C-alpha cells in the first residue's frame, strides 16, 4: 500500500513538472533576443581546442569578434559529421538567424544545402564548389609546409622521416609532396615514410601511426593531421617533430621544430565585413605567405641558425612566387617525369598535374598515394 502511495506521489510530481515544462515552453522562444548583431557561425570537423586545424579557425573567429565587437554575434559548432548532422546544424543556425556560415572542411556543403538556404551565405574551406551563395577558400600552405620540411631535413640525423597523414586525397598528397621536397632541399636523398590514419582528427590513431613510423626507423616525425598526438609521441621517444595547422609548441616543447600554420582571421574579417555591407560575392580565394594566410610558426631549439637563414631566403622567394616548389622537373615515386623542367603546376588547371588534382607522390616518399 505504501509503495502505491509513493508511486502515485511520483506520478503526481511528474505531472506537475511536466505541466510546468509545458507552461514554460508554451511561449515561443528562439526569436526572443534580437540584438541586431550580424550572426556568423563556424562549423568544425573536430573539437574547437584540437591544437590544430579547428583551433586555427576558432582563432580566426575570435579575431573577427575582437575587431567587430558587438556588431557581430559569433559561435562555432564542433565535431560535426558530414551529411545528416551538418544539415541539422545548418537548419538550426538558419532558424536562429545566422547569415554567414564558414564550413571548415570539404564535403560539408552540397548543392542541395546551398539551394535550400538561399538567404544564407556559405563559405567552405579546401573545396571547389562555388555557387551563388557558396564561396571557397584555402591557401598555399604547401609553401610553408615546404619550409617546415626544410627544417625537418636539416634536423634529421638519419635518412628517414615519418609523416602521419589523414586521407589519400590531393590536398594531403600535395602537402606530403611539399614537405618531402623541402626536406630533400636541406637533406638530399632523404626519404619520407607515410602512414594514413583515415581521419582528420583521431589522436589515438595518430599516436599509433607515429609509433609505427618510429619503429620503422624514422628519426623525426611530421604530420598532416589535426591533433598534436604525433608531437607528444615524438617527445616521449626523444626525437624532433614538425607540427601542422596551429602553433602547438606547448604540447611537446622539447621535440618542437616548427610548423606551417594558418592565420584565418584577416580573411574572415574581410568576408564578414563584406557580408555585412552587402558586397559579399562568391569566389575562390587562395591565400599565401604574402597575404599572411599561411606562416611558419616560431622555431624550436632544434633549428640551427644556418637552417633559419636558408629558410628565410627560400621564404622570400616563395613570398614573391607562391607554389614555386611545384616547378619541374618533378618525378613521381617510380622515377617517371611528371612535370617538365621549368613548368609550374597550377592550382586548379591541369587535372592530376594540378595542385588540387595531384594524385601521385614525389620521388622519395615511401607509401602509396591510394591509401
Amino acid at each position, binding site marked *: 500500500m505504501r509503495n502505491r502511495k509513493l508511486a502515485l506521489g511520483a506520478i503526481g510530481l511528474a505531472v506537475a513538472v*511536466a505541466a510546468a515544462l509545458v507552461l*514554460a515552453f508554451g511561449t515561443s522562444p528562439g526569436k526572443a533576443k534580437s540584438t541586431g548583431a550580424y550572426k556568423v557561425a563556424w562549423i568544425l570537423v573536430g573539437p574547437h581546442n584540437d591544437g590544430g586545424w579547428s583551433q586555427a579557425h576558432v582563432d580566426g573567429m575570435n579575431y573577427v569578434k575582437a575587431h567587430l565587437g558587438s556588431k557581430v554575434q559569433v559561435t562555432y559548432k564542433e565535431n560535426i559529421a*558530414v551529411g545528416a548532422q551538418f544539415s541539422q546544424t545548418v*537548419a538550426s543556425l538558419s532558424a536562429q538567424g545566422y547569415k554567414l556560415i564558414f564550413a571548415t572542411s570539404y564535403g560539408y556543403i552540397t548543392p542541395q544545402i546551398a539551394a535550400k538556404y538561399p538567404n544564407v551565405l556559405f563559405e567552405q574551406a579546401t573545396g*571547389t564548389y562555388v555557387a551563388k551563395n557558396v564561396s571557397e577558400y584555402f591557401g598555399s600552405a604547401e609553401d610553408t609546409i615546404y619550409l617546415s620540411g626544410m627544417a625537418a631535413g636539416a634536423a634529421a640525423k638519419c635518412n628517414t622521416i615519418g609523416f602521419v597523414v589523414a*586521407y589519400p586525397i590531393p590536398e594531403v598528397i600535395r602537402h606530403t609532396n611539399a614537405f618531402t621536397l623541402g626536406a630533400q632541399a636541406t637533406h638530399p636523398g632523404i626519404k619520407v615514410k607515410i602512414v594514413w590514419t583515415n581521419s582528420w582528427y583521431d589522436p589515438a590513431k595518430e599516436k599509433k601511426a607515429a609509433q609505427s613510423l618510429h619503429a620503422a626507423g624514422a628519426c623525426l616525425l611530421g604530420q598532416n593531421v589535426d591533433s598534436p598526438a604525433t608531437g607528444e609521441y615524438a617527445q616521449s621517444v626523444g626525437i624532433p617533430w614538425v607540427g601542422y595547422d596551429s602553433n602547438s609548441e606547448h604540447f611537446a616543447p622539447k621535440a618542437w621544430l616548427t610548423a606551417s600554420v594558418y592565420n584565418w582571421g584577416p580573411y574572415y574579417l574581410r568576408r564578414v565585413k563584406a557580408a555585412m555591407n552587402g558586397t559579399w560575392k562568391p569566389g575562390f580565394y587562395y591565400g599565401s605567405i604574402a597575404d599572411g594566410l599561411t606562416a611558419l610558426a616560431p622555431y624550436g631549439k632544434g633549428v640551427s641558425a644556418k637552417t633559419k637563414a636558408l629558410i628565410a631566403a627560400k621564404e622570400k622567394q616563395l613570398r614573391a612566387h607562391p607554389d614555386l616548389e611545384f616547378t619541374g622537373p618533378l618525378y613521381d615515386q617510380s622515377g617517371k617525369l611528371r612535370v617538365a623542367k621549368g613548368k609550374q603546376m597550377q592550382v586548379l588547371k591541369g587535372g592530376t598535374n594540378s595542385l588540387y588534382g595531384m*594524385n601521385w607522390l614525389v620521388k622519395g616518399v615511401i607509401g602509396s598515394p591510394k591509401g
Partner: protein
Amino acid sequence: MRFTVERRLEQPRWLSVAVPVASVVFAFLVAALVLVATGHNPISTYRQLFDAAFISSGSLDQTLISATPLAFTGLAAAAAFRMRVFNIGAEGQLYLGAIFAAAAGLYFGGRGHASPWVIALMVVAGAAGGAAWAAIPGVLRAFFRTSEILTSLMLNYVAGYLLTYLIFYSESYWRQTKGFNATVFPTGKPLPANAVWSAWVLNTQGGITVPLGAGIAVLTAIVLWVLYRRTRFGFEVQVLGDSEGAARYAGVRTRRKILAVMAISGAIAGIGGASQVGDFAHALDGDPNGLQKQGYGYSGIVVAALGRYNPFAVLLIAFLIGGLDNAGNTLQGASFPSGLVGVIQGIILFCALGGEVLVRHRPRLLRRASVGEATPLSGAVQ
C-alpha cells in the same frame, strides 16, 4: 534497516508509463544540477532543447532525419533481442544495406525505369544486403555456437572499412569519377533523379517534410508486430526467447529460428541503409566523418531497450531520441561545449534505462526484524 530490490508479483499497467516519465523527469533534475554547476541556466537550456527538437518551425524535419534511421536500427535490435539473439551488428548491416541500395539505385535508375520500381528495388536490395551481412554471425551462432555479440560487432568494423574503401580507396562503381571535383575529394556517384526517394510534405505550420523512409519504418513496425504477436513463427520466437530448453522440447527448430531472426533483423537495418541513400545522402556516403560517425546502429540498441522491444514503442522512442540528437546540434556552441550536450543526453538515457528496473522490481526498505519474512517470498518469485 536493509535495502533490497525484489521482483514484482504483478506489474501494474500504469507503472510502465509512470516509471519512464518519472525517470526522465528525474534525469532533467539531475542534469539541471550539472548545468547549474557549469554555469548554465537549466530552464533556458531545456527550453532551447525542446524548441530545437520538436517545437520551432522546421525542427521536426530535422528531428526526423535522426529519428528515421534510429527507428530502423531500433526495430532491427528489437526483432533480434526479443529472442535473446543479441545482434549488435545493425551498424554494419545498415552500411551493407546502403551499399546494396546505392548499387540498385545507380543501376536501375540509370536504365531509366519508373521511379516507384527503382525505389522498390532499392528497398529490396537494401534488405538483402543487411540480411546477408547479418546471416554471417547468424550461421556462426546457429551451427558453431559462436557468440553473435562478438561476431556481429566485429563485422561492423569490416563493413565500415568496406564502405570507406568503395569511395575513398578504389574507383568503384559507387564512386563519382567524372569531373575535376571528383579528383579533389572522393564522393559517391549521385543517384539519378528517379532513384531519389520522394518525401511527403505535411502542410501544417511551415510544412513538415516526412521522408519516405519514415513511412517504411512505420510499415515495418506493423509487420513486425503482426509477425511476433499473431503468427506461429512469432510465438515460437517468443518461447525460444523465454526458455530455449522448453522450446526445444516443444519441437521448435532452434537453428532455423536463429537464422531467420538474424536475417529479419539485418534486413530491417539494411532498409535503414537504403533510406540513408535514397532519402538523405542521394549517393553512397563513404566518408568516415559522415554516416559512420553517426553510430545509428549502436543508438538503435538503446532505442530498442527503451521501447521494451515493442515495435510501436520503438518508433516513439526513436522519435524522441531523434529529437534529443537533433537538439544537441542547437545547444552546443561557443558558450556550451558539445561534451556537456553529451553529458546531458547520457544522463537522460541512463536514467530512462535505469528506471526500467522499477517496472519489474520494487525497492524496499526492510527493518531487521522483517528480513526473515521477506526473503522466502522474494525467493519464491524467482
